[in-house]
C-alpha cells in the first residue's frame, strides 16, 4: 500500500502540486507590498532619524555649546566651534553634522545634558551633493521647528 501511494505521489508530482496550491492561494490574499512613495510607512516615535536642535519657548536656542555630543559621537561626524560671549558664557559659533559619516546611533542625543538635540522621524535624506548633506545649525534648528511639541527621545 505504501509503495503504491509513493508511486502515485511520484508520478503526479504530489509535493510540487502541494507547493503550487500554496502559491495560488497566496495569489488571492491581500498583497503586503507597499506602493512606497504614495503609501507612507508609519514611523514609530522612537525612530532614530534626522537630528533636530530645539529652541526654548521664548525663541532662544537650548544648546549650551558644551560639545558633549561631538565627544560622544563614535565617528566624529559632529563639528562644533565655540567662543566666549559678551557675558563670559560659552557661545556657539558653528554646528555641523556630516550626515554621510553619521551612524544614526543616537549617542549624541543621549549625551546632550539639556535635551537640546533630539532625533526626528525624517528618513528621506538622500541628496545630490556632499555639501548639502552637511547639516548646519540653521537646517537643524529648522527641523526642530517642524517637530516642535512632537519631540521624542527626551528621556
Amino acid at each position, binding site marked *: 500500500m505504501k509503495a503504491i501511494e509513493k508511486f502515485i505521489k511520484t508520478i503526479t508530482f504530489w509535493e510540487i502540486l502541494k507547493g503550487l496550491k500554496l502559491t495560488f492561494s*497566496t495569489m488571492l490574499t491581500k498583497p*503586503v507590498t507597499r506602493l512606497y512613495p504614495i503609501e507612507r510607512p508609519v514611523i*514609530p516615535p*522612537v525612530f532614530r532619524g534626522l537630528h533636530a536642535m530645539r529652541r526654548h519657548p521664548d525663541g532662544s536656542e537650548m544648546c549650551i555649546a558644551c560639545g558633549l555630543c561631538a*565627544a560622544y559621537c*563614535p565617528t566624529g561626524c559632529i563639528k562644533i566651534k565655540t567662543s566666549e560671549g559678551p557675558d563670559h558664557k560659552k557661545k556657539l559659533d558653528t554646528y555641523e553634522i556630516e550626515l554621510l559619516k553619521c*551612524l*544614526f546611533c543616537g549617542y549624541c542625543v543621549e549625551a546632550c*545634558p539639556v535635551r537640546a538635540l533630539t532625533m526626528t522621524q525624517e528618513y528621506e535624506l538622500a541628496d545630490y551633493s556632499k555639501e548639502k548633506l552637511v547639516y548646519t545649525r540653521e537646517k537643524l534648528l529648522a527641523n526642530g521647528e517642524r517637530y516642535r511639541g512632537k519631540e521624542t527621545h527626551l*528621556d
Partner: protein
Amino acid sequence: MPLNTKEITINMGPQHPSTHGVLRLVLELDGEVVVSCTPHIGYLHRGSEKLAEARTYQQIVPLTDRFDYLSCGNNNLGYAIAVEKLMGIEVPERADYLRVIVAELSRLSAHLLWLATHAADIGAVTVLLYCLREREEILDLFEILTGARLTVSYVNIGGVRRDATPDFFRRTREFMAGMPKRIEEYNTLIMQNRIWLGRTKGIGIISYDEAIDWGLTGGSLRGSGVNYDLRKVMPYAAYEKLKFEVPLGEIGDVYDRYIVRMEEMNQSIAMINQCVEDIPDGPYKADIPMVSLPPKDRVMQDIETLIHHFVLVSKGFSVPKGEIYAAAEVPKGELGFYIVSDGSEKPVRMKVRSPSFVNLACLPRMVKGHMIADIVSCIGSIDIVLGEVDR
C-alpha cells in the same frame, strides 16, 4: 586514444549573486567537477578590530553592529557580555530578558534571510518572497523597540538602551502566534520537493569528527550531529531560565544543515514567547554609576551628577586591567570577543572570532569532488556573511 584534457581555472565572484557578498572563489575545474577551490577574502575589510582600539568601550557598540549586519542584536550582546565579564557587572533581570528577545528576533530574521537566499540560489524563488515578507515584520518590531531597523545598537554595557513598551509586546505576541504557520508554509514549498532534495541531499558532507576538527560552530556544526550550543554550554543573559532544545542533524550534508536551521527558528519562536510571558518588571539598565549615564532630569540639577555625566560622556569609563574571552551564539555560530584592557578607557586589543570566517575555511573541503553548481548550495548552507568574514 585518450582524449587530451586539462583542468581550467575560473573565478567565481567577487561580483556573483550566489556568493552572498563579495566572496571570490578561484576554482580548478576538471570538466564540471571541482578539483580545488580557494576562497579569497578581504573585499569588505574595514579594519573593525583596529578601529575599536581608537574608541571608548561605549563607542564600540555601534561598530559591532557592522560585523554580521543581519543579526545586530546578537553581536551587541556578545560584545556587552565580554566587557561586563571583565568589569564584573551584574545586569538586571529585565534587561537580560530584553536581550534575549532582541537576540532571538535577530536570529529569526537572520535565519529567514538565510533561507530566502539559500532557496533562491538553488532555484526556489517563491521562498525568497515569503521569507522577506516575514522578515519585514521583524524589522518593524525592531523599529518600535530600538528606533532602527538593522543597525539596532540596542544592547549596551550594563543593560539595554530603552525599555520595551506594551505595544511592542503586543505586536511581538501577535507576530509570534502566526509565525509557526509561516514556517510550515516554507516547509510545504521545499522540504519534500524532489528538486530541493536532489540539490541538497548528500552534498558537502562533513562528518562528526571533521566538523570538530575544522572548528565549525553554529548550524554548520550541529548539522553534523555535534551537540554544542553556547546557549546551553555556557549560558549567558537569560538563556539559563528558558526551555529550548538544540536540534541536531545526522550525516552533515546540506540538507541536514537546512533542517537544523529550520528547527532553530521554531526554537527561537518558543524562546521569544517564553520571554514575553515571563519578563519581570524592574530597571532595564544597571544602576552602576561607573558605566551608566545618570537620569537626564538630575543632570542639570546638582553639580555632582553634572560632573559625572560630563566625565562619563567625554572620557568614557575605564575597564580594569586584564583580558577576557567571551562568546555568544549568533545565527552563524560562536562569535567571540577577546578583549585586552590596560586599565584605560579604550581597549588595547580587541580580537573578534567570527564564525563566518571559520566556517568559510571549511568550504574547499565541502565542495571538493562535487559539481560546480553544488558550490552554490554549499555556500548557502554554511551561512556566511561577508561583513563578518572580513570585519
